[in-house]
């Protein structure tokens, strides 16, 4: 049966007339139905970045330590010294998680792990950056948000725990804009030696092409195209069969692939992620400058009666495409037999540059691979700037009870302890987690390389909503600050650009501003972007999500004794503030949560100040003058101080005095000005520490002392006192309480 290509069919494949004309020009003829499907997924936003490619070019991607650049392969690779390297990347699974949160999140984890071991790296740890609608209250929306939240966490825990890769950090926040469109971004990092870098290229004409891993079914049919559209009620109806993750198979596949890579017979390897077999065949051929010919009849199949279209576009999980050097076939068979995994030789590398797909010997698809993979149309969308948010004025803000405000802020799920989440993640498997979730950055000891790595993900989307450029800059600064506070020197960045529909000029403007902000900040902080992901069309029926350009950053801690945690340790230690007391309340959590106002300009970042503060903090840590370091972010100094008292293994009080500082107390406590770090230091380090700060000409102040069982803050005539246990329970059990309701 031949399906006629009608304008309607072209449109349902998400292709424009112009794009269709381009397809005809590439082929020199009309495509058939299967070819139309192939073009449709490869030229979808998800695979081709057609609306963002020009923007992504703005990122600084090179650096002395960059071994594989962003865009070259599945993930970037960066040198960490002594011939060791790390591969890391972040990827989103937002749309699948909106439809089926458990499996959507689980398969998101599986996908990013495959991206990392495809590079020849052994995956070491995961981070997850999540966004949901508000979870408090009895409304149906809140109930649904709780369900999405709890299922997403369960899905990540299911896959990550089972495959045995610890989830050691991440971030979560809650805001109305994510209602119905949660964000699930997962980061994975792996370790490898320089000579182990594997390539996703089909090298060597005549080499065998193997399909390995789970059998193909009709799962997630054309999920890439699906992720490139707005979410509507209709999505739930026309949803293709949901992909189900099998972490057990994922684990076997991981071990088998690493074993095969170690044998030295792999010429090229590529995971089958979005657009499955289609994407992996044409991309490997394109990268190798070769062609690939496969026969679908040879593909292991789970269901009967699948058409070539279905097999090519299926997004069944836990599958890889592997090209082996001649003579390596036996090794592959031996290893995959050992691991009881399906495999099949499905074709070979050719010299004609074509992606040729046969079905029982009959040609079904014949497309120039490079053109399919690289010549997708590139668009520059229209951008329309939002009017600038107004400046915040403290005079217009009625005073609120600061004592109660701090408790409410600490209990608000965005700020509250995330132990309800990370206790569900195995964060100690692989016996390398030195600083577990709960501090500014997670620290992992890479035993094979004898290296300490720190990693974090960050993005304040409220800032990005009110000023995307500034928000993006701050995301980079905050990530770097988190690493510095743990004792690490920032190394490189991966990002995940989560936005609404780019055809809306205001959204495209948000995206462009964010990219430029990220790019500029990465340049200033000296951290190249080694990879990332774009997720667009994050819309619910009402509106788009707040712009969320998530930053994942990795750093190296040179010596074990530099590892630093965020909480106060001992009575009588001196508390310092490095950086300004600050005053900027615009876009703060205080305004949002306590005053219900999601508005005004966010804080501004000064690179000079930020870099100065970070340099001093790192230097103080390295000189052994510091017992704890915590950066101020959401909730300002008040929340940060409280966290210093309550987030450690032993709660401890503190007495802090702002003297005659002129601002209102709520402004002192809850402003979110940037470039601030709270340190604690032993009394005997006082002189040395202050000398270092003075020499660096950096703003700093002695705020008070650790001790007692209360947090006491005074400024001018006012004094506030909180029982540390009360703060602790407000903060530690909050999410558990909300989820039980």
């Amino acid at each position, binding site marked *: 049966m031949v399906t006629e290509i009608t304008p309607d069919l072209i449109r349902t494949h998400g292709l424009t007339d112009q794009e269709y004309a381009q397809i005809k020009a590439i082929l020199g003829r009309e495509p058939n139905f299967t070819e139309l499907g192939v073009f449709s997924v490869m030229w979808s936003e998800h695979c081709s970045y057609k609306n963002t490619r020009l923007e992504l070019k703005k990122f600084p991607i090179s650096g002395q330590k960059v071994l594989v650049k962003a865009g070259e392969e599945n993930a970037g690779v960066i040198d960490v010294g002594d011939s060791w390297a790390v591969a890391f990347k972040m990827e989103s699974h937002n749309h699948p998680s909106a439809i089926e949160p458990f499996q959507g999140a689980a398969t998101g984890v599986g996908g990013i792990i495959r991206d990392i071991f495809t590079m020849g790296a052994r995956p070491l740890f995961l981070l997850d950056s999540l966004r949901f609608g508000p979870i408090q209250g009895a409304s149906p929306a809140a109930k649904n948000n709780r369900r999405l939240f709890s299922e997403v966490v369960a899905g990540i825990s299911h896959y990550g725990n089972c495959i045995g890769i610890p989830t050691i950090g991440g971030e979560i926040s809650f805001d109305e804009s994510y209602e119905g469109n949660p964000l699930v971004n997962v980061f994975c990092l792996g370790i490898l030696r320089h000579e182990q870098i594997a390539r996703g290229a089909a090298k060597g004409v005549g080499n065998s092409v193997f399909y390995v891993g789970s059998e193909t079914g009709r799962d997630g049919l054309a999920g890439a195209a699906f992720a490139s559209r707005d979410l509507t009620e209709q999505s739930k109806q026309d949803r293709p069969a949901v992909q189900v993750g099998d972490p057990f198979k994922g684990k076997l596949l991981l071990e088998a692939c690493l074993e095969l890579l170690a044998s030295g017979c792999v010429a090229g390897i590529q995971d089958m992620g979005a657009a499955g077999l289609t994407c992996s065949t044409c991309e490997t051929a394109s990268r190798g400058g070769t062609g690939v010919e496969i026969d679908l009849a040879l593909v292991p199949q789970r269901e009967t009666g699948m058409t070539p279209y279905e097999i090519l576009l299926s997004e069944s999980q836990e599958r890889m495409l592997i090209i082996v050097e001649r003579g390596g076939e036996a090794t592959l068979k031996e290893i995959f037999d050992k691991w009881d995994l399906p495999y099949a030789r499905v074709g070979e590398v050719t010299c004609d540059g074509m992606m040729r797909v046969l079905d029982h010997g009959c040609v079904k698809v014949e497309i120039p691979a490079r053109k399919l993979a690289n010549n997708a149309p590139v668009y520059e969308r229209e951008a329309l700037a939002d009017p600038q948010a107004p400046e915040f004025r403290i005079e217009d803000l009625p005073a609120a009870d600061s004592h109660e405000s701090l408790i409410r802020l600490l209990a608000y799920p965005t700020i509250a302890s995330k132990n309800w989440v990370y206790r569900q993640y195995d964060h*100690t498997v692989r016996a390398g987690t030195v600083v577990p979730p709960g501090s500014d950055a997670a620290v992992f000891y890479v035993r094979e390389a004898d290296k300490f790595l720190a990693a974090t993900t960050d993005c304040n989307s409220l800032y990005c909503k009110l000023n995307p450029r500034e928000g993006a800059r701050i995301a980079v600064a905050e990530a770097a600050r988190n690493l510095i506070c743990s004792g690490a020197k920032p190394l490189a960045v991966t990002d995940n650009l989560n936005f609404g529909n780019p055809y809306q000029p205001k959204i495209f403007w948000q995206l462009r501003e964010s990219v430029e902000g990220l790019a500029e900040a990465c340049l200033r902080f000296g951290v190249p972007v080694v990879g990332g992901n774009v997720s667009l069309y994050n819309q619910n029926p009402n509106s788009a999500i707040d712009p969320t350009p998530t930053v994942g950053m990795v750093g190296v801690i040179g010596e074990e004794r530099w590892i630093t945690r965020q909480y106060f340790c001992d009575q009588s230690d001196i508390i310092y503030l490095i950086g300004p007391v600050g005053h900027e309340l615009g876009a703060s959590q205080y305004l949002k949560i306590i005053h219900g106002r999601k508005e005004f300009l966010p804080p501004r970042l000064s690179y000079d100040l930020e870099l100065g503060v970070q340099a001093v903090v790192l230097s103080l840590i390295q000189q052994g003058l510091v017992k704890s370091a915590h950066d101020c972010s959401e909730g300002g100094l008040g929340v940060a101080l409280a966290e210093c008292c309550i987030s450690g293994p032993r709660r401890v009080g503190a007495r802090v005095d702002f003297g005659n500082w002129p601002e209102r107390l709520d402004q002192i406590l809850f402003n979110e000005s940037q470039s601030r770090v709270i340190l604690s230091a032993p009394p005997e380090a006082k002189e040395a520490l202050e000398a270092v700060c003075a020499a660096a000409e950096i703003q700093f102040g002695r705020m008070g002392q650790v001790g007692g069982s209360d947090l006491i803050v005074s400024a001018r005539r006012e004094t506030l006192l909180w029982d540390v246990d009360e703060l602790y329970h407000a903060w530690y059990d909050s999410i558990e309480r909300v989820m039980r309701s």
Partner: protein
Amino acid sequence: MKIAVVQFPGSNCDQDCLRALTDGLHLPAEYVWHKQTSLSGFDAVVLPGGFSYGDYLRCGAIARFSPIMRAVVRSAKEGMPVIGLCNGFQILCEAGLLPGALIRNQSLRFVCQSIWLRVETGDTPFTANLQGRRVLKMPIAHGEGSYFVDERSLETLESKNQVVFRYVDETGDVTAGSNPNGSIHNIAGICNEARNVLGMMPHPDRAWDRKLGSEDGKLIFGSLAETLEPVVSR
């Protein structure tokens, strides 16, 4: 002396166990693949944690039929020390080498955290160095770690001193709050009547390096090593 670390498909603490033994305690240890049928040349066996066979059906239910398990059962009956950690404990119960079963945590959620553990008996090869109700610190990480056994067997376990570890608070007291999963009598680990087979949910394989926050796991592997090869002069 040589210790076997069995690798089942889906084991994910096999590498941690091997490292704990070799890097942490400098003991000779090797992997044994689940399709192997013999343990000859080995003096003790570790069944590591993880999700053998994806933990599908029930934890340990499928792994228990792996070819190597016949050798494990045989060796255990002959008196070889066998220790099952986390998933390994579940496999030992499924295989009938230990009484009882591990069911879903009472919270219905996976739980990963650091816990305190009291050593209830020094009379096993794994706790010989741990006399006097020592309190140890170690991580747990499991979704199905709630130990269950019927009333009669429980009485036997207690009266024959087969409860080896209990969840306690930091001061060593058995409390409801220190029970992370709903285990009956706060049981965290048990041994068989012959005392050579031990199963425990906590992870000594993740507590053998100061960097990881605890080295207490070494005490267990260390006891085993000294039982196998008594240190004469010290």
